[in-house]
């Protein structure tokens, strides 16, 4: 890489709109990873992604075992080949989503990936910014006091875009 020509990314702005465990973690990892590289990072949580910031729900995000066509028998660490699909009927059995989630969480802990609450704290402590979407708050009747302390602000889409001002900003949708 020729550093005289290429301009490094200075700021990433990550939108998290999904509320499943696997929908939320990529954004958290990307934001934390950006801060580790000295890149500014902001996260915008909207729609079900907002569950990540809500104190009551952040600890119970789940892996979806229904309607998740990428899920296979190897994924929830069942030890079977990746080519064996996870039957949808099986995913609908009570407790299966819970089991898949706890298996994945155990694996994540082994890989030193923190739980959601701790991850948000890490990102905030590293200087990353956490924003809640105003429209999603109104839609789900969520109040400021329902959100964790690390949330920096509640923003409209326009305000979020205004923060993207400056050179070498990347907007990511996870």
């Amino acid at each position, binding site marked *: 890489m020729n550093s005289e020509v290429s301009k490094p990314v200075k700021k990433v702005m990550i939108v998290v709109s999904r509320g499943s465990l696997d929908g939320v973690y990529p954004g958290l*990892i990307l934001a*934390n*990873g950006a*801060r*580790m*590289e*000295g890149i500014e990072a902001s996260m915008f949580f909207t729609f079900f992604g907002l569950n990540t910031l809500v104190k009551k729900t952040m600890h119970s995000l789940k892996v979806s075992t229904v309607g998740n066509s990428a899920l296979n028998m190897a994924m929830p660490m069942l030890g079977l080949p990746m080519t064996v699909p996870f039957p949808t009927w099986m995913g609908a059995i009570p407790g299966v989503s819970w089991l898949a989630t706890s298996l994945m969480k155990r694996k994540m802990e082994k*890989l*030193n*990936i*923190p739980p959601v609450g*701790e991850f948000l*704290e*890490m990102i905030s*402590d*590293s*200087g990353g910014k956490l924003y809640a979407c105003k429209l999603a708050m109104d839609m789900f009747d969520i109040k400021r006091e329902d959100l964790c302390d690390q949330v920096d602000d509640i923003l409209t889409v326009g305000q979020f875009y205004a923060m993207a001002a400056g050179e070498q900003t990347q907007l990511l949708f996870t």
Partner: protein
Amino acid sequence: MKKQLAGREIEVNEEGYLLDPNQWDESIAQALAQEESIGALTDSHMKLIRYLREQQSKGVALTIRGIGKSGVTTIKEFYDLFPGGPLKKASKIAGIPKPVGCI
């Protein structure tokens, strides 16, 4: 490749990380800190650098999370001490290899 640091010739890789942690001493750390725009290293910096060297010599994978839980410093303070990529910069100054990992 070779590089002049604190009046000595040191072996570094193409990113400037020391190849031999035994070539490291505090004067090398101070010289690297200047290059990395950290400025003069304080006791807080040195305490952390020694901790990183000690962990690395034990073969422990270094992570920001682990450092936050070490009791040596907090994550906030770590970012304040080494602004702009703390784990990479602190490792370079500590004369240990660049940490690999996403967390």
